[in-house]
């Protein structure tokens, strides 16, 4: 169930959040060291005991398979005030009679754990009356007592709040010092998830994942329209896996000043003329377009038709007529999943089904070569992996937001051009075009076919030159035509990391290694209609 348990629970639990201050590395890897250590309190929960009690109870109740995730999740936000969230949650997933069962809870009392495991098995038994094809899972390489920690230089939960406020304020002041800026704000959030996983396959591991999420917003009045504002945010450049160093080493004052200067250059935008324009996207815009319009279409649940009552279907279906055959983009495009990327937001030791992710190609030279899968969905791709001489396995894309794990967007990379192409090179031969720089909002329809994109940072290209900012720009295109119209990509020096996804939490966000790109003509529409 993609709708996360968190979404369906309570407002205050909408976001998984967690891990407290104190020591970074659990000394005893099975016992969380959390904020309580600083207060001389005992460890919060014994995650290993919870996991094993749940597995034992599930097996005793007749489960043929069970896995358990135990999370301690801590989030802290710093601005002019502070916010702190801490959650404990465990989810028990079982197979009985060939059907899934899942129950989550928070009570660490042994009788509560046993009851939750038994309810999961009972749910599976009942629901097996509605299943024709028993669930089968691809095997997972054995891991016992595995341990993974996001490399962190400075524990963000240990840094004095006033020091962080001073840094954020100096960045705000640097932006406000630029003449014409109306407002500049910077805040930061940190999250740590201590996750323990164990399954009846004998797999067990702990992971401590840490992420930093600086958030900025700079605004100035639009000189052409007194109530309109021009805004920029740096979030896509800043969010990363890691600790306080993500903020400390970001050169935030300089970045915010430069961003403010760019805002001021953009305060006289011209409302765009509708028509056909060539398109150049910077690395950030390209990442957003690829993610929403291509990578999202490779979600195996979507492809198999399991999500027709929600997001819909995918054009990259069925797998037999897609994998290795279907050109869905120009041959210059190769995409790889990248969950081992150092500093990546989706970088983990194991996914939420205990699978170590590998870096695998999703699209090679414009042709689909794999999907985002978990252990259940990968079982249907055996024919393809055999043909490729590969083991049938999950590539480790499963994510749990407190509920059932499901295939989700991993970190991914877009292969760069071998030529050392820069943004200027991509622009220089464009006669009439638009250049998108920065975040792009992208909405694909429920078949991933008709796509609409909007951006706040659009410049007009005329005869190979940027000639001024535009506003009210909307792009509308048919996905397959658009991606076949990808002409060229940037080279090594134009490569950038881009953080995408929301909210600003771990396991909801991912890091894309992206390059700028040039496309053939697209429809540009004007979104400035006022009546």
């Amino acid at each position, binding site marked *: 169930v993609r709708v996360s348990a968190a979404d369906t629970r*309570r407002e205050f639990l909408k976001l998984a959040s967690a891990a407290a201050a104190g020591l970074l590395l659990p000394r005893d890897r099975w016992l969380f060291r959390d904020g309580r250590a600083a207060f001389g309190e005992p460890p919060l929960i014994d995650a290993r005991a919870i996991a094993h009690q749940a597995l034992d109870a599930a097996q005793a109740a007749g489960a043929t398979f069970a896995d358990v995730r135990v999370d301690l999740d801590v989030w802290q936000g710093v601005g002019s005030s502070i916010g702190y969230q801490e959650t404990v949650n465990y989810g028990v997933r079982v197979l009985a009679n060939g059907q899934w069962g899942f129950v989550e809870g928070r009570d660490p009392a042994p009788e509560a754990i046993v009851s939750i495991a038994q309810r999961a098995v009972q749910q599976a038994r009942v629901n097996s009356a509605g299943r024709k094809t028993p669930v089968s899972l691809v095997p997972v390489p054995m891991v016992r007592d595995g341990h993974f920690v996001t490399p962190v230089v400075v524990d963000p939960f240990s840094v004095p709040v006033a020091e962080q406020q001073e840094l954020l304020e100096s960045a705000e002041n640097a932006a406000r010092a630029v003449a014409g800026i109306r407002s500049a704000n910077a805040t930061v959030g940190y999250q740590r998830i201590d996750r323990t996983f164990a399954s009846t396959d004998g797999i067990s591991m702990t992971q401590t994942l840490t992420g930093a999420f600086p958030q900025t917003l700079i605004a100035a009045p639009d000189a052409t329209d007194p109530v309109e504002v021009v805004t920029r945010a740096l979030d896509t450049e800043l969010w990363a896996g890691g600790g306080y160093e993500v903020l400390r080493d970001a050169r935030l004052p300089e970045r915010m000043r430069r961003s403010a200067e760019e805002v001021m250059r953009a305060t006289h935008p011209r409302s765009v003329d509708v028509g056909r324009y060539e398109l150049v996207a910077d690395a950030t815009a390209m990442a957003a377009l690829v993610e929403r319009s291509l990578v999202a279409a490779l979600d195996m649940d979507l492809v198999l038709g399991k999500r027709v009552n929600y997001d819909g279907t995918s054009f990259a279906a069925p797998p037999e007529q897609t994998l290795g055959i279907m050109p869905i983009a120009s041959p210059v495009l190769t995409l790889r999943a990248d969950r081992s990327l150092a500093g990546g937001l989706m970088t983990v030791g194991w996914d939420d089904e205990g699978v170590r992710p590998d870096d695998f190609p999703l699209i090679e030279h414009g042709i689909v070569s794999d999907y985002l899968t978990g252990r259940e969905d990968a079982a249907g791709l055996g024919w393809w992996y055999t043909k490729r001489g590969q083991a049938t396995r999950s590539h480790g894309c499963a994510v749990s937001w407190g509920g059932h794990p499901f295939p989700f967007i991993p970190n991914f990379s877009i292969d760069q051009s071998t030529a050392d192409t820069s943004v200027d090179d991509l622009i220089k031969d464009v006669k009439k075009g638009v250049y998108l720089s920065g975040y792009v909002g992208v909405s694909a329809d429920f078949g991933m076919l008709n796509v609409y994109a909007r951006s706040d940072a659009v410049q007009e290209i005329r005869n190979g030159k940027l000639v001024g900012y535009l506003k009210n720009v909307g792009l509308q295109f048919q996905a397959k035509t658009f991606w076949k119209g990808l002409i060229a990509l940037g080279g090594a020096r134009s490569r950038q990391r881009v953080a995408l996804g929301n909210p600003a939490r771990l396991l909801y966000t991912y890091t894309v290694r992206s390059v700028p790109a040039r496309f053939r003509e697209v429809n540009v529409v004007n979104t400035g209609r006022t009546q």
Partner: protein
Amino acid sequence: MPPLSVMSREDSLALGQRVLGYMSAPDDARVGISSGYYSETEFALNQVQDGADGGGPGISFDERFGQKFGWGETDEVPLGETALRAVVARTEALARALDGRGATFPARDPLRPPAEANAALWSDATVGEMPPERRLAPILSSMNALERAGLTGAGRIFAGTYQDAALTKDGHFEYGRYTRYQYSLTARTKDGTGSGWAGWTGEDVSKADPQALTERASDLALRTRNPVAVEPGRYTVVMTAEAVGALVSSLASMFDGSRADSGLSPFSRPGGGNKLGLKVFDEQVTLSIDPMDPEGGFLPFQYVAPAGRILQYRPVTWVERGNLKTLSYPTQAQAAAHGLESVVGPVNALRMAGGSTTIDEMIASTTRGIYVTRFSSIMLISQRTLFQTGVTRDGTFLIEHGKITKPIKNMRFEDSPMFAFNNLIALGPARRVYVGDGSPVIVAPCATVRDFAFTSLTDAV
């Protein structure tokens, strides 16, 4: 097995008082106590895919130390006093370490006595712990009916039971509880050319009719097979209450006076100020909220820890016969400065009053137009105009000479409720609509709208 019912009034109060007792500055503090349980079952490809159950209690709180403010929340209630004390202590330590310079706090009005909660919000204490058998039964019926019709289906049943409470040290205490039930399904023809949807959401489980929903989705799937393309453009559109509801839901959060005054809302006046007292919609349009609304009700209070406020809701008519009557300001003083009585909102709910035309009459009086069952994949483009884009889905038909004549390919729209609700021809009876998981509580009518803008076609089914 531990009890799965939400916390009672007495237990909430006792827990809240304990949390206040852990605080070092409880005189300027608030505590929220919430609990909730949910259960769901989902099917796709004509078989049950999975289910889930869960939930539990949690607390949230905020506290002010002079110019320093902190808020916290945790679901570690089952872990006991030590855990909760530690979360409070951690939050206080962080707040006290703030550099309080430059922090500003909006003024707060004194709290009013708690309002009575709407009894219609609570139907059945067992909803949240609805056993899997009770969830499976309607799903099996739906799947069997779909099989018999030669259709492929997917759908979901969701049931939740919730409780909220808020407490301050001087004894202000509010408590409320509500249930939520949802049933939705999509039926598709095996050739993939036809698709239909139906969904229901509400508090009273006994009012849900999964069989009728299944029939409606199946009927739409069969009737939408092999759609033809019509040219995009401006059309007269007959919209179901669900389609209108999707447009209405984007208005729910827009009645904030400060936002309007700063130029960032559809109720900002070009050149400054807001549109209070002006005609903003066709005169058939009345938009309101009422915690006691029998169909679109909600709890009369909400504690928002990050804002340090307990919001108390009363009935408000935002728009009456097309005129913007009031906006929400955080305090009485600010509201008075705009010549308004203080109202608290917006809230995640909105009712659009209905009219007397039935949807059949709307179709019968349309010479050439489009019938829209549902909008999907909506993206808001402009906060200022509510200009948005999305696509039609699960039942789009051509209307010719007062009759639905053929299914048509789905189309992308680019429009706004600010435009569409100025181009109203007729409104039908209003009812609670399901516009998506986790969306606002929306009551909306079916409607005929002229000059609604469709801009491109899609092959998505």
